[in-house]
């Protein structure tokens, strides 16, 4: 009889621990799902974790170019990074060449149609930076071919 009671207690303890174990997995799983809502989707592409940049890496400048963004390192560059790269890539800025009037018109167009915010007193500084570092150069009606990589044709 006593022996049987012992067995029953042990069985109950096993059941309870199994139950708590399951509960733990379930609750843990729910927390995981909350963080990863697509865990059950077959086609969810795992994205690489961003490599955390140290401040030193971020500030790196080579040949006058701010490596992390590709911008020319000059006065007010940080203002440009902060205001001009939250919707689009820095590349959309750095591949363009415009006069002061051109950059001003582009900013106005973005404010009117693309949800760019009011830049306040920074607008002047941003335009000065852009007009200085991304000014047009005279290309004429047709340029010479450049950056030719010569190779032997077999």
């Amino acid at each position, binding site marked *: 009889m006593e022996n049987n009671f012992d067995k029953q207690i042990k069985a109950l303890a096993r059941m309870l621990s199994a139950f708590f174990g399951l509960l733990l997995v379930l609750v843990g799983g729910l927390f995981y799902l909350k963080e990863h809502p697509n865990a059950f989707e077959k086609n969810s592409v795992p994205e690489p974790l*961003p490599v955390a940049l140290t401040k030193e890496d971020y500030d790196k400048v080579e040949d006058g170019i701010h490596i992390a963004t590709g911008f020319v390192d000059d006065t007010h560059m940080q203002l440009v990074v*902060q205001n001009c790269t939250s919707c689009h*890539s820095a590349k959309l800025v750095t591949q363009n060449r415009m006069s002061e009037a*051109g950059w001003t018109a582009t900013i106005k167009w973005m404010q009117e149609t693309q949800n760019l915010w009011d830049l306040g007193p920074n607008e002047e500084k941003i335009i000065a930076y852009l007009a200085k570092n991304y000014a047009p150069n005279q290309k004429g009606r047709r340029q010479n071919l450049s950056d030719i990589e010569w*190779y032997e044709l077999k």
Partner: protein
Amino acid sequence: MDRRHFTARLTLAGMATALGAPIVFAHKLPKDYLPLALQDNDPFTLFTKDKEMVVLNDRPWNMEAKAHLLNDRITPNKYMFIRNNGRIPETIDTNTWTLTVDGESAVGTKTYSLKDLKTKFKHHTYQLTLECGGNGRSEFNPPAKGNQWTVGAVSCANWTGIRLSDVLKDVGVKADAVYIGYHAADTHLSGDPKKEPISRGVPLAKAMQEETLLAFKMNGEDIPLAHGHPLRLVCGGWPASTSGKWLNGISIRNQVHDGAKMGGSSYRVPCETVSPGSKVDEKDMCIIESMPVKSLLTYPKSGALLKKGKNLNINGHAWAGELAVSKVSYSIDFGSTWQECQLEAPANRLAWQHFNATIAFPKKGYYEIWAQATDSNGIAQPMVLPGWNPKGYLNNACHRIAVKVV
């Protein structure tokens, strides 16, 4: 494509620490947006593109080919340019995807599932030339605003789908219809859900052409994500921006469609030619329709060193928007003399045409091979830049490659 993974672990403060600077207007950042410096997506893997493709812009994604990468007769995905105006849709479920046709000039509003479209209408395949209206923009002087495409924003793949005209007829088109406009699932860069990044269209006549497709396959496979999976409008020979990707709506309009990037200077050129750098009033700008005649030397790659006495085989493609190409010539003396290339007929209307020639060089030296195509109306490509326009569209100047005979 889901960034929630990322941002779940990154607070604004964390981002600011990593950036080494506070984020001004942080409250205006789209909620799932990651500042540029923290993004590390490899577009070549993401979109299965060749490593030699050139990324012009990574938000939104814009990528172009180089001339020699476009040597295939039918452009494979890995060499196809990407031109996006907004953000690629994050979740695409082909089981629930629908296309709704509506508009002032639609007899009624009708919604089709993908399965409806695939089973109710006859399938057709055409090889269709798609060129970005701004291809060649980088050469304009004074420079024009936008992605600085060189020569590689053109492709000619096989597209399989159903005729847009079949669907329009199924819905019913009223007599006053003049235009169709598309709507799609991509989202605006600013994150504003009320804004469409792009919603363009074509006149009804173009929409009713037999080659104008609602496509679900590209080169025999499901359309790749970056090119409009699972449904794309394809209007061959017209600026590729009329070929709406991730399509979920078509409006039959009784006026010229007025969606995003139909107005202002977008995909428009001065109705009358202007001097370079002119300011042009919006009312004096006309919508680009058919693309102009153009050609591309795809072999050899520019920069070939050739032994004296050896002949050089060249080849490439030529296209002319709505028209056919009637002639392609090449010059090795900067246009002083021209020789005619062999030119093939297109696989179908609106497909590019292949050309080739064999060149014997008279002596050692630096040469440029220039190619010039002429369309079926007798209009040829200019050797210099064509008429300047504020946004730098329609640069169809002759393509050239460098060769040295040594």
